[in-house]
C-alpha cells in the first residue's frame, strides 16, 4: 500500500517536473543581455562622445565565426578599455543572414556587433536593421579610410551601415618554382608580362599544360577567377529597375570560356578540401591574392613552401576580394560601447596597430600607411607585399557599390561554372543567355533586363 502511494507521488512529481521544465525552457535567455554601465551614468554627453575609456564598463556581444580573432581583439581592446569585454557568439559565415532574419522576424536578441561579410553585404544592408554610422551620434568621418572602400560600406542613399575591417586591393600570387620551370622565369615583371591580358594568359597556360603533360594547372579552377572578374567590373549592374546583365556576364564569361576551351584550369572550387590541398601539392601556378590570403590560404595550406610565392597584378586589373565589416544593429543593447570598439579598433592609430598585428590585414585607416610600415614575409621571397598592393594595385582600383542583388550574380555564376565545365560544347553566347535566364528567375518580375 505504502509502495503504491510512493509510486503515485513519484509519478505526480515527475509529471509536474516535466511540466515546469517545459515552461522554464520556453523562457528567454537573459544571461546574454549586456548593458553599458559607465561609472558616471549621469553624464550622457560623455557617453555620446565616448567617455573616458577607463570609465566605461560592460560587455559587447559579437556574432562572429572566428573565435580566435575575437579573443585577440578582446585582448587588444582591453589594453585601452579595461572594463569592457567582448563576448563571442559563434555564428557560421553562411548563417549570419539567417540568424539576423530570425532575430528580426521574432523580435529576438540582436548582438551589439555583427559581421557583414562581403559576399552577402548588399543583402545584409537591404535588411534595414543597421545603425547609420554616418549620422549622430557616430558621425563617422569618411576621409579617414581609403576612398575605394566607401562603396562597400554605403547604401545607395549614402548611409554608412558598416565599417570594413580591412582594405583588400588584390592581385595574383604565383608559385615561383613552377613559373621558373614552365614559363622560364620567376621574375615578377616578366611573369606579369606573360599574362598581362587574357589572350596572353591562355597562351602561357597552354605552354604550362604542354610542358607539364597536364599535371600542372594555370588555375585551380574557374571558381578561382569568378570573384576577381566580378570585382574587376566597376560599372553599376543594377541601376534602379534595370539590370545590365548582358555586359556583366560577357565580361565574366569571356575569359572563363577561353580558359575552359584551352583546358588550362583544374576543376577545384575555392575553400574545398581539394583546393586547400592544391597549395601543398604544387600543381597550380596562380591563385587570386588578397592581403589576408597569406594567412588564410597560403601559410595554412603550404606550411613548408616559404619563399616560393610572389604577388603580382592580376590579369584584367585590380579588384577587391573578401572583406568583413562591423555593423551595429538598431536593436543592439550596447550601441555606444560597440561604436567605441569599432572606433578604437579600426580608426585610431593605436587600435589599428594592434589589429594589424593580430589579424595581418591592411587596415582601413589610411593615415596609418603614411608612410607604409615595412612588411617582409619569408613566404614572399623578401617581397614587401603590402607596399606592392598599396602602391601598385590600390591606386588603380575602382569598386562598384554593393547591391542587394549582387549575391544573385554570385549564385548564378557558381552554377554557370559547373555547367560550362561539364559541357564543353556550350559556347560564350549560349552561356551568357543561360546566365541571364537564370538571373531573371531570381529578380523581381518587373525588372528590365538589358
Amino acid at each position: 500500500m505504502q509502495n503504491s502511494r510512493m509510486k503515485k507521488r513519484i509519478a505526480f512529481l515527475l509529471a509536474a517536473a516535466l511540466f515546469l521544465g517545459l515552461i522554464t525552457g520556453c523562457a528567454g535567455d537573459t544571461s546574454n543581455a549586456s548593458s553599458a554601465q559607465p561609472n558616471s551614468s549621469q553624464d550622457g554627453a560623455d557617453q555620446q562622445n565616448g567617455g573616458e575609456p577607463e570609465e566605461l564598463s560592460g560587455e559587447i556581444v559579437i556574432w562572429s565565426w572566428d573565435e580566435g580573432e575575437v579573443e585577440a581583439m578582446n585582448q587588444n581592446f582591453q589594453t585601452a578599455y579595461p572594463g569592457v569585454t567582448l563576448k563571442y557568439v559563434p555564428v557560421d559565415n553562411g548563417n549570419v543572414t539567417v540568424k539576423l532574419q530570425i532575430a528580426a522576424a521574432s523580435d529576438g536578441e540582436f548582438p551589439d556587433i555583427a559581421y557583414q561579410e562581403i559576399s552577402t553585404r548588399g543583402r545584409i544592408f537591404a535588411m534595414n536593421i543597421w545603425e547609420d554610422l554616418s549620422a549622430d551620434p557616430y558621425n563617422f568621418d569618411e576621409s579617414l579610410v581609403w576612398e575605394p572602400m566607401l562603396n562597400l560600406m554605403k547604401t545607395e542613399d549614402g548611409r554608412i551601415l558598416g565599417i570594413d575591417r580591412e582594405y583588400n586591393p588584390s592581385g595574383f600570387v604565383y608559385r615561383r618554382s613552377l613559373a621558373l620551370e614552365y614559363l622560364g622565369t620567376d621574375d615578377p615583371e616578366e611573369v606579369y608580362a606573360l599574362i598581362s591580358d587574357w589572350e596572353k594568359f591562355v597562351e602561357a597556360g597552354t605552354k604550362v599544360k604542354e610542358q607539364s603533360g597536364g599535371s600542372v594547372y594555370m588555375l585551380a579552377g574557374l571558381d578561382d577567377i569568378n570573384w576577381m572578374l566580378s570585382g574587376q567590373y566597376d560599372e553599376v549592374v543594377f541601376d534602379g529597375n534595370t539590370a545590365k546583365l548582358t555586359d556583366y556576364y560577357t565580361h565574366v564569361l569571356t575569359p572563363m570560356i577561353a580558359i575552359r576551351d584551352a583546358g588550362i584550369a583544374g576543376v577545384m572550387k575555392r575553400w574545398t578540401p581539394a583546393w586547400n590541398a592544391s597549395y601543398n601539392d604544387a600543381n597550380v601556378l596562380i591563385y587570386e591574392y588578397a592581403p589576408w590570403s597569406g594567412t588564410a590560404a597560403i601559410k595554412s595550406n603550404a606550411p613548408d613552401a616559404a619563399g616560393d610565392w610572389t604577388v603580382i597584378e592580376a590579369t584584367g586589373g585590380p579588384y577587391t576580394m573578401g572583406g568583413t565589416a562591423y555593423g551595429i544593429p538598431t536593436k543592439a543593447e550596447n550601441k555606444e560601447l560597440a561604436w567605441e570598439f569599432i572606433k578604437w579598433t579600426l580608426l585610431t592609430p593605436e587600435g589599428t596597430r594592434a589589429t594589424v598585428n593580430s589579424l595581418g590585414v591592411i587596415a582601413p585607416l589610411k593615415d596609418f600607411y603614411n608612410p607604409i610600415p615595412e612588411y617582409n614575409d619569408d613566404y614572399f621571397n623578401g617581397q614587401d607585399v603590402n607596399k606592392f598592393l598599396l602602391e601598385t594595385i590600390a591606386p588603380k582600383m575602382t569598386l562598384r557599390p554593393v547591391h542587394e542583388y549582387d549575391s544573385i550574380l554570385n549564385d548564378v555564376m557558381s552554377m554557370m561554372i559547373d555547367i560550362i565545365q561539364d559541357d564543353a560544347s556550350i559556347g560564350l553566347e549560349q552561356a551568357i543567355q543561360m546566365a541571364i535566364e537564370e538571373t531573371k528567375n531570381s529578380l523581381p518580375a518587373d525588372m528590365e533586363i538589358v
Partner: protein
Amino acid sequence: MKNALKAPRRTMEKKLSLAGLLFVIPFFIWYGVFQLFPILYSFYLSFFQWDGIGVKEYIGIQNYIKLFTKDPYFFKSIGNTVLIMVGYLPITLILGLLLAILLFEPRIRGKRFFQTTQFLPYIVAPVACGLLFMLLFDWGTGTINQILIALGLIEEGINWLGNPTMARIVLVIMQCWRQLGYVVTIYLAGLTGISPELLEAAEIDGAGKFQKIRYIIVPLLKNTTLFLTVTGIIDGFQMFDAPKMLFTTGQVGAHAGGPQRSCLTPVWYLYDTAFGGNSASNMGYASVIAYGLFLFILIVSIINYKISARKGED
C-alpha cells in the same frame, strides 16, 4: 453504504484523471507551440509578401498562382526528388530484405554484431554524411576516382558532383547507404513475426530457399514493405540537410540544388526561399512551397493507400 463506497472511488478516479492530464499536458503544450502554431501561422503567411523583417504585404492567392503556374523550380524540385527516390527506394527495399533474411539466419556467426553495425550509417548525422560523400566523390582528389583510376577502369576522374546525372547517382548511393540499416532493422522485426512452423512445413514439402522467400516471406512481409514504402516516400520528400551538405560544404555563396539544380529538393528550395540563400528572402512564398509540398505528399499517400487497399481486397 453504497454512497460511502462510491465517494472514495470518485476521489480515486479524479486523482487518476488529474495525474493522467498532467502527463499529457506537456505534450499538448509542446505540440501546440511547436507544431500546430507554425502550421497555422505559415498558412496565414502564405497570403503575404514578406521578407521576414519589413512590413507584411497582403497579396491574396498570388503566391499560390505563382507556385503552380510560373515557378521555375518547384516542380523541378519535386521531379528531382521523385527521380532520386525511384533510384534508392527499390534498391534499399530489395537489398534490405535480402540482408535481413541473411541476418535472420540462425547459423550466421556474429550476427548480433552485424545486426548492430549495419544500423550505424542510419545514425550518422546527415551533415556528416554529406561531408563524407563530398570528400569521397570529389572530382580531383576523391577516393572513389582514385580507386577507379588505380583499377584502370577510368583514365581521368569522373565529375560526380558537377554533372547533373552523376550528382543524382551520388545522392542515390548516399541515400541507400543511409537508409539501408533502418530498412534491415524493420524487416528483421517483421521476420520475427513469421511463424517458424510455416517455413519448416515448406521445407518439408521440398521448398528451396528462394521459394520460401518468394511464396512465404515476401507475402507475409507485405504490410512491412508498405509501411517502409510510405515512410520512405514521406522521408524522401523531406530530404534537405544531406544534399545541402553534399553540394555546398566549404563554399560561401554556392548556389542551391547542385549542378543545374539537378538535386534541388522541395525542402531545400523552401529553405533557400525563406532565408534568402543568395537572393531576396520571401517567407510568404516559402510558406506556399511548404503547402504545395504537403498537397503533393497527401495526393501521393492517398493514391498509395488506394492501390494497396485494392490489392488487399483482391
